[in-house]
């Protein structure tokens, strides 16, 4: 990690957001396993640095697309956990009025397209967002988050190629967590790094330690700068690891024990905490204080969501067409 070229506030904000994602996911997992929360969930414990590092390089009016595993992206881009928790409980005060749920979490007003839960489905949508910016000569960028699996969808090829030939302000971010559901990446890729595929589109491709928020931030910052200057898209591969199951009660038996132990030792929050204390950026109880504040925010969100009324059943018939 780089030496102190960042402000304390910037570093602690990164840390706070990563902890907020982790604690949110852990609380949601508990609520779900208790049977209190409906639906299904895909969680991102262990992948917090990718979302937070990338979104730290964005402005408020930049736009992201997300995936079936969207909670981290939404928090990192600024969706309040209060609205997210309510959405997970299917409440009208949720960010999608209870019509989206976990897999379609988002709020375009905050630059988050309702999450696209079809693998690879967000890739052309992000290109179109970039196209709108380019047509209107706005200096905004679109970020398309996706998993490693998305790079094997046909539409990925179509979308990245279009973004490339039109120099669209888009950053394609592959969070390589080493498994497409249960299938290890080695079984489905011949290339060593997925970012090598960037060569096929004539754009820069970069593989980065996705568990280091500062490395992610630096890579994203350069890609965003390039996009804002009208020089076109970048393919960023962020290597990370999912330290929870694919969804719901998946015990992830396909992840080898040694690999899991290594991943836990390398998980981003512990690592970043070590960096912050090791570099003398935090001297006192700042990190514990952050954890307490985050937990309190999440508890308030849970309470607020559970106390808020359900939608009327017939609200299901609303919100399809404008006219």
């Amino acid at each position, binding site marked *: 990690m780089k030496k102190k070229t960042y402000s304390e506030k910037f570093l602690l904000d990164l840390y706070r957001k990563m902890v907020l994602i982790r604690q949110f996911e852990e609380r949601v997992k508990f609520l779900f396993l208790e049977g209190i929360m409906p639906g299904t969930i895909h969680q991102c414990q262990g992948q917090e640095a990718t979302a937070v590092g990338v979104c730290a390089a964005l402005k408020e009016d930049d*736009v992201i*697309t997300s995936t079936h595993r969207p909670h981290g992206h939404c928090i990192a881009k600024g969706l309040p956990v209060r609205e997210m928790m309510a959405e997970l409980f299917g409440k009208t005060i*949720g*960010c*999608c*009025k*209870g*019509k*989206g749920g976990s897999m*379609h979490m*988002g*709020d*375009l*007003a905050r630059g988050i*397209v*309702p999450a*696209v839960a*079809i693998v690879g*489905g967000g*890739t*052309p*949508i*992000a*290109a*179109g*967002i*970039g*196209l*709108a*910016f380019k*047509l*209107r000569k706005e200096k905004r960028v*679109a970020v398309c988050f996706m998993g490693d699996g998305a790079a094997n969808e*046909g*539409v990925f090829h*179509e*979308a990245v*190629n*279009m973004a490339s*030939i*039109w120099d669209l302000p888009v950053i394609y971010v592959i969070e390589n967590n080493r498994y497409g559901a249960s299938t290890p990446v080695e079984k489905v890729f011949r290339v060593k790094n997925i970012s090598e595929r960037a060569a096929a589109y004539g754009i820069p491709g970069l593989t980065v330690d996705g568990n280091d928020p500062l490395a992610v931030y630096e890579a994203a910052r350069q890609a965003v700068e390039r996009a804002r200057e009208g020089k076109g898209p970048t393919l960023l591969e962020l290597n990370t690891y999912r330290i929870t199951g694919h969804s719901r009660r998946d015990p992830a038996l396909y992840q080898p024990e040694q690999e899991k132990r290594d991943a836990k030792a390398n998980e981003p929050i512990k690592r970043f905490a070590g960096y912050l204390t090791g570099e003398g950026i935090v001297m006192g109880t700042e990190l514990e204080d952050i954890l307490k504040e985050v937990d309190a925010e999440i508890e308030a969100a849970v309470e607020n969501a559970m106390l808020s009324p359900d939608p009327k059943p017939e609200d299901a018939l*609303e*919100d*399809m*067409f*404008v*006219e």
Partner: protein
Amino acid sequence: MKRMTIAEALREGIRQEMRRDERVFCIGEDIAIPGGWGGAFTVTLGLEEEFADRMINTPISEAGLFGAALGAAMMGMRPIADVQYGDFLFCAMDQVANQIAKMRYMSGGKLTVPLLMRAPVGVTGRGAQHAQSMEAFFMPLPGIKIIAPSNAYDALGMLRSAIRCDDPVLMFEHKLLYGSKGARTESGAVDASGDIPDEDYTVPIGKAAILREGGDVTIVSHLLMLHHALRAATKLAEEGIEAEVIDARSLVPFDWETLKASVAKTGRVIFVEECSKHAGVYAEIAATLAEEMMELLSAPIKRIAAPNTPAPFAPVMEKFYIPQIDDIVSGVKELVEY
């Protein structure tokens, strides 16, 4: 007032809308190459000269271009996305069915998708994969409005309504009705041209049109088959049978009021379409009619449609496959004699 074919009317409509509103742009394959075709059926011919930046000529990437249209629409643009042949919509199906149709609903109504999709349909001597009438595939898909104009006046009026609409609209156009000229002329084309007023008129989405009045039987159809129905009605009149001919033209939402009023008058209804009969457009319309308006009927509902096979190539088989004017005439006679 000017006489125009459907291709000309659509081209003029797109041109005017792009002049009127900077958010409108076209995205599609082979739509903006100087010396090219202006799309497979000449609709966008030459528009790139006036709108160099807003005629987005894409790679052969249907999923990509429909997804890109959605992304731009969500950001406040008003894209017109088209495929060369309706059959290619299947290549874009995730974007159309999972993303475009559902995005506003999933957001809780917080965003809008002002997006017009255009697709040519119809059997035209090209075998099975450039032939399908795609309408019925999209009707069970809540979140998309579906229109199918059969003449130049409606084509321009409905195009304007669709571009100005804040919801996704899918417009089906028939290859034999375009009136495409030059190298893109279609053999077997039917004249669907019309007098186009100079003023900025619109034709609303959701309203059918009664093109011929009659008290004996109601014929409901759209696109090419509507023209067959009108010809059949002329023949029937010579034998003293007065058919009322309704151009459905808006399939979603469907104009139940007009259908109901007509059937209340005639008591007999026959639906004609180029889709396969099995789960075709009018399978749904007929089922609802039977479910909710049975008391209006004095004879069984009749449907005339293509058989449940892919479209064949050989001209003799193709003619057998497509419903013919005489099929409609004899279908109506069966009903009247019931």
